[in-house]
Every structure is written in C-alpha cells, then in structure tokens.
C-alpha cells in the first residue's frame, strides 16, 4: 500500500487562495486505508477550508468528492466531467502522488494541488502505525535475504550488512524506532536453516531498473493494446 501524510493545512489553503470554486477529491484505496485521504479526510479538509476562508471574510465554494481509485481512468472520468460541468476552478487531491499526476494529465487547464505528502510503500504495523517495506527498485533481491528487504529497510540501503551502527538489533539512526534489518535478516535465515546464504555476497545492484531510463512502465500482454 502507498502511504501518505496530510500536508499542513495552511500549505493547502495557500494553494487555493486565488480560486473561488475548489473541489477536494479523495481516493478510496490506499490513502483511505492509511487514514489520510478517504471520504472522512475529504470532509475534514473541506470543512476546514470553508471555516478558514469564512473567517478571512473570503468565503469560497468548497466541493467534496471521493473516488474508488484516482489511478484508473474509469474511476476518474466522473471527476473530470464534474470539473467541466460545474466550472470548478481548482482541484485538491487527497490521493498519493500517482493520483495527483494521473488527474493532472487529464485536467486540461484546471490546476490540481496535492493535499498529501506521499511517503512510501508500507504496511500497517499496528493500528495507526505504518512502516516502509519496499522501495520499488525494480529488481527484487529478497529471495536471498529471507524475504526481508535491505534496500527499503536498511537506513543505508546496504546489500551486505550489517554496518557498525547495528547495536543490540537496533539501527543507530533511530534506535528507539528502527530495527537493524540485517539483524532481522540474520535471525530469519537462522530460523530457515539458511545462515550459509550469508556467505554469498550480494553483487552490486543494477539500479537501472529503479530509476534509469525514464518513466517505468509495465505491460500485461493479455490485456494490452486490444483493438
């Protein structure tokens, strides 16, 4: 799941200062689950904007909507037509950066602003806490590390750890909150009876799958380019 955090209210308010009719759009998938961009947060932000602009003596029309996903055409079409038909001046998206981009590509002359700061691909560790689990590097190596990713979860992204900053299983960067992922990998491989795997040093990673060569794309032949 993609995790995102609400932007500071005044930053969002600043984005839309110059517009009269603003639509706040939530996303019903990842950002709903991480409690930052679902129907409830849409209403909270919209209500806050109405109150704040009202207090400034500059009341604006703040509209609300929420779609199932902002990263698929079928789901965003109603938003596009609403913007068109209702004469909306600006859109605030409470999706991750993907949704904001996806809408921006399709919104013509209507500006769109992010209401969230997209942070990572993460998992719910406990109610109200999410942690990064994957960096989307495009070339997964975790078959060698017991299913635990050092790229995403090591503060230094070390492929052959741990470093000297690992103490009692904690990472020196923030011992209270971060576990040393290489300790986790060691413990896991030990449980699996595969400690010997650690003798095989991981070769330097080919980062071309992560960032090189421009925008990454994925194609599924079974559905792609059907005429």
């Amino acid at each position, binding site marked *: 799941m993609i995790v995102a955090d609400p932007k500071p*209210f*005044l930053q969002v308010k600043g984005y839309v200062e110059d517009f009269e009719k603003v639509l706040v759009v939530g996303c019903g998938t990842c950002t709903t689950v991480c409690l930052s961009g*679902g*129907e*409830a947060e849409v209403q909270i932000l919209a*209500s806050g*904007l109405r109150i*704040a602009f*009202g207090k400034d003596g500059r009341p604006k029309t703040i509209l609300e909507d929420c779609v199932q996903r902002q990263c698929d055409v079928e789901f965003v079409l109603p938003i596009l037509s609403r913007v068109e038909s209702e004469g909306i001046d600006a859109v605030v998206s409470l999706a991750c950066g993907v949704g904001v981009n996806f809408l921006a590509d399709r919104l013509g002359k209507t500006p769109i602003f992010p209401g969230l700061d997209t942070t990572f691909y993460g998992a719910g560790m406990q*109610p109200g806490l999410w942690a990064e689990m994957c960096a989307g590097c495009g070339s997964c190596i975790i078959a060698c590390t017991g299913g635990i990713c050092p790229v995403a979860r090591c503060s230094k992204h070390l492929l052959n750890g741990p470093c000297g900053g690992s103490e009692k299983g904690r990472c020196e960067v923030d011992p209270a909150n971060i576990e040393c992922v290489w300790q986790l990998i060691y413990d896991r491989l030990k449980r699996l009876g595969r400690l010997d795997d650690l003798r095989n040093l991981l070769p330097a990673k080919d980062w071309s799958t992560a960032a090189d060569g421009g925008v990454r794309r994925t194609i599924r032949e079974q559905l792609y380019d059907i005429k």
Partner: protein
Amino acid sequence: MAMDKSSPASLQVLTAGALPTCSAACPVHTDTREYVQRISRGDYEGALDVLLEVNPFPSVCGRICHHPCESQCRRTAIDQAVSLRMLKRFVVENTREYRIARRRKAVVKSDKTAAVIGAGPSGLTAAMDLALRGYRVRVYEKDTRLGGMLAHAIPRYRLPAEALAEDIEDILATGIEVHSGCCVGVDISFEELKKENDAILIAVGLSESHSLPIPGTGSKGVFLGVTFLWDVANGLYPQLGERVLVIGGGNVAIDIARAAKRLGPSKKVSMACLENREEMPAWKWEIEEGEEEGIEILNSWGPKAIVEKDGAVAGVALRRCSSVFDDQHRFSPVYDESVTTRIEVDSVIFAIGQKANLDFLTHTPVAVSGGRLLCDRESMATSERGVFACGEVVSGPGSAIQAVATGHEAAKVVSHYLETGEILKLPHRKIQSIGELPAATAALARRFERIGVDLADPAERIKDFSPIEPGYSEEEALSESRRCLACATGAHLEFPNHCAGCLTCVRICPFGVAQVRRMAFMPARQCQTCGLCAAECPAFAIDVWRFPTSAVKKALRAIVSGLDLEKVARPFLVSFCCLNGTTGRKYLREQPGEEIRDSGVLRVIVPCVGRLSMVDLLRPFELGADRVAVISCPEDGCYYPRVEEWLGRRIKRTRKYLDQIGVGADKLQLFKMDGGGDESWPRIWEEFRAVNMETPVTN
C-alpha cells in the same frame, strides 16, 4: 432535540426477519425495543403508541404481566434483564391525557354484526379489533363489571381497579356496544343471540374453580378459589376463621393466600400443593412475595380428606405426594399413603384449577364434551357455523397477554368469516428470534444494575389491599430504559462500495464485533450500537440505525437554517450532550428557535457523544457557532467501554486542527457531567459561554 428515529420494519432486514428476543417472547409481539427506545428519548407518547398498537391492556400488563419479554431479555447475559414491565407501567402512568386524546371511535363500515360473550381480556380485544375493522360489535358480560378475571380474580394489591378501568375505557371508546349484567342463557338465549348477529365469539374464560372428590368438601368453611376472589374483589369478605389452608400451588392459589392474609393479618395462612418447590407453577417472585407476607407453603402434600366437626372444617388430612408428573410430563400424581399428616384449620380454599361455565350452550348445536367446548385450534371455529371461541375457554389457563393474543387472532377469523362466509385456518407462524447475546460480546459489555423498586413492607402491606409496588419515577424510568441494548439496531455498512477494508472498525470496536470479510461486516445480533466504528471509518461507509451518521449534519442544518444568526445571543454555543445523561425530558423536547436565539445555546442530544465524528465536531463552526461543547457521561459512567479514550483522542485531534484553521483549540471543549444532565448541562453552558476568548489571528 433527540434525533433518533429508527424504522423497526426496515430493521428486521438486518436480522432476516428475526425479532429481538423480547418481542419474539411476547404473545402479541410488542415492539419492546422501540417503545423502550422511545422512553429513553423522552417520547413517552410515542412509546404508548407502540404499546397500544398490539395490546389494548397496557395498564394491566404494566402491573401484572408475567413479562416473558424480561425472561428472554438479552441483557441477562450481561447482568439482569431490563425492567420492561415497570417501563410499560411508567408509560401508561405518564401519558393519561394523551391516551384519552388519541381515542377514536371506530367507523362502522359493514352491516354485519358480531356478538362477543365475555368481557375478559380476550373477548374485549377481539371486540375492539372487530370494531376497528368496521363491524358492529355487541359484548355480553354476565357481571356488572368488565374485565373478566382481571376485574374479579386478581387482587387489588396487584391490579388496582383504576389501572383496569383505563384500559377498558380506552377499548369502549371504539364504540363497542356493551351489555353488562346480561348473562347469556339466562337474560338472553344463545339462539336469540345467534339470530341477531352474523357471528358469535365465545370468550367466557374459566370462571369456576374445580373442587376435589374427597370427603368433607361440603363442610362449612370450604370455599372455591374463584368465588372467594370474586367476593373479595367485590368487598364481600368471607368469614375464614384464624387458620386458612389454600389447596394449590399456582398463581391463583398464591393470589388467594395473599388475599386471605389481607382479611386479617393475624391469620395463619398456609398453602398445600402436590408439587415440590421447583415444580410449583406459580411465578417465583409471587411465591417469594407470599412468603414475605407470612404465607407458609407445604410442598409435596395432597389433600386426602377434609376433617369436619359439627359440619364445619376442623382440619385437613394430607398425604405425601411422591411425584406429580409422569415421564411425558403429564399430570399424574403418585401418593405415598404411608406418609400422612393432619393440620388444624378453620377454612379451606380450593385453587386447583378452573373450568368454564358452559351451561348457556346446553340445548344448542354448539358441541361441548366432558365440560369442554369443542373448538378447532387453528380456525377457532366451534361445531356450529358462525360460532367461534377464544381465550382460556379454548387455550386453558394462561396469562392476560396470552388471552389478548388469542383475542387478536379471533378477530381475524371472525372478520374473515363475516366477509367471505368461510372458515380461515390461521397459518402456523413460527417466530424467529435473534437469539441470545453471545457470551463473548456480553463479557465485554459494561454492567449496569437493574433499577429495582422496594415493595411496601410486608407487615404493612398485609393490612389492606393497597397496591404494594410503587412505580418508577421519571429519572428511574429514563435510567432503566437506557439499559436496553437496542438489540440489532447497530452499525451496518451503509455504503459498501466506499469500504476499503481498512480494518479500522475491527481495531476500534470495543466489543470485538466488527469483522472484515473483504468488506466491513458488523453482525447485527452482536453489535452494541456504540457507533465508534462509524465515527472513525475513514470512508464514512458505516452507519448506525440507532443514530444515523448523517443525523447531526441534517439536524444542525435544519435548525440553523431556520435561525437568524445575526440575532442569536453571542457567543453562540452548540452543545452535544449525551442522551444517557438526561434525568427528565426538559432538554429532550424540541428546542424552539426563540430559545436558541435568546440563550445562545443549541443543544444536540446524541445517544452517546462517542459517536460524533471529527466532521460532526467541525460542522457547527461551519454553520456559524462560536463554541462547541461536548458533554459526556460522568467518569466511568459511559454505557460503552473505551469510548472515553477514543472520544478524547478525537477531540484532541480536532482541537489541534481548529488551531490550524484559525478558529482556536479552546473553542472546542470536552466536559464530563457531574451528576445528572438536567443540572450539570446549564451550568456547563453558562460557564463555557462566560469564558473570555480572543479569536486567534490566522496565518
């Protein structure tokens, strides 16, 4: 403003047509949950409407019903049943004027007439139903007073005459024609009745007591139970002597014993019955109350002979009853003749069962066999066309509310006959109940003691026939009504396509009820209606029947839109108050706009403020409020566990947000009641409005 309208019909969809256990257990299926919820919202009139919908005898039932609803109340899994009978009594005692005002005379729409013989609960219910269906109805009652056994056999200390009169006056207001003091077979013949009416309903009940074929029953001082009770009810106190033995172990026997005690507190009143203590058919609480009054109960004894001396009772010879029922639980007493005893008494009263007086049917075509009226149970039809029967004459001894239930059914079959000339076989309807509250859910619920009332002191109450049980005060009734779990009116997924399966509901539910099976799922039979999941759902996909999520928004808009905000006293305070804190209905009534304008306080009553979402807390500011107060129950007073913690967190977040948006955190405050809401709310409003607050500068 209590905004808690639920729709019982649509609620049954949640449980696939199954009724709450209380309603399922009630012979007339009173919508118990609904009337109790109406009481809790201060809508006593609405509660009476619910009661009268199915039961024309709510005043009687409020006093003497054996309350199967309570026996089946799901709250027993947590602590004790909700005191439903007392709540019913509270409603009728506090809606008298409304009840009179709502009376309507039935409109006669048919030229068909029906005669009802017997004005007991069954006959009168049927008569009223038939009148409401548009028929002309004549009721024939051999006594001068209406009510049957209710009027004559239930002692006044349990059922005051006024309570019965309330119900009967209500029924008569429909326009039923009553011929009291008119004994069919004596004052008017059955044939004549048959000639004058298109249908006849026999509802004569079981008005005579059985005796026993043992020596000595003809002695002076031997009484039959029903006759005795009739005399007592009519102020004709029989001479019993100082020592009385009542034969029998049922409710009528207890009534007789307790009535006998009241004819002279110094009397020694005993009861002898075949059954052992556990087998006694009388209600447990009646036995206990009788014993408190000094009634002695001799279990497992059967009378062998009445010992007479000079033609009067001198004692009773008893023999040990070793078992009462056979393997199939049929009445089949076995005696041990080797164990006998004899007690000295001055009078004996038989209360071993009743029979019908069917003399009026002699020489009529209506078949009677062995003293019993032949009647088909399903169609309620006798052997004679157009003649039907209902109540105890058909069903055997039962409760008042069971008699009412058969009265309703009889009205259906008689009406069908009058319309079509055909016999209607009532379909056997199996009532499904939602079942017990699962133990795992019950274990997590908070316990709140049932509010009891103290019966009059036994030494005092045996002095006369004054009612022994006080009713609830308003505060007690409101408090007790809130113990109702409002079963199956809780959370449900209102917008399934919004649900992201995020698990927030699962994680927040204090009862471990919410689940996610791809989508959120709150089993209706388990949900305790706290509303926390709805308040925290990030997709706002969950709603609660008992207090819809949209209710605050709608109600606030409706009220504020009717207000001229310029004229409202400032600071304008919106106060969310917990319904469960009210001790009267002063603050439960609709708030007039004028009052809001002058006081600067708009109150929104919520059944637990824990269900207010962050948007609910922001909404008043959007609509022009200056301050928002959330007033919750006193510390540890909330009906739901963990609400205080979740509400506290939500308020903390909202206050932080109010700072960010330039309103100021201090404009939203959480208060806890100190005592009842009616006293503490105005104090909180006054103090909070008086606080001086500078509006923070934005940006």
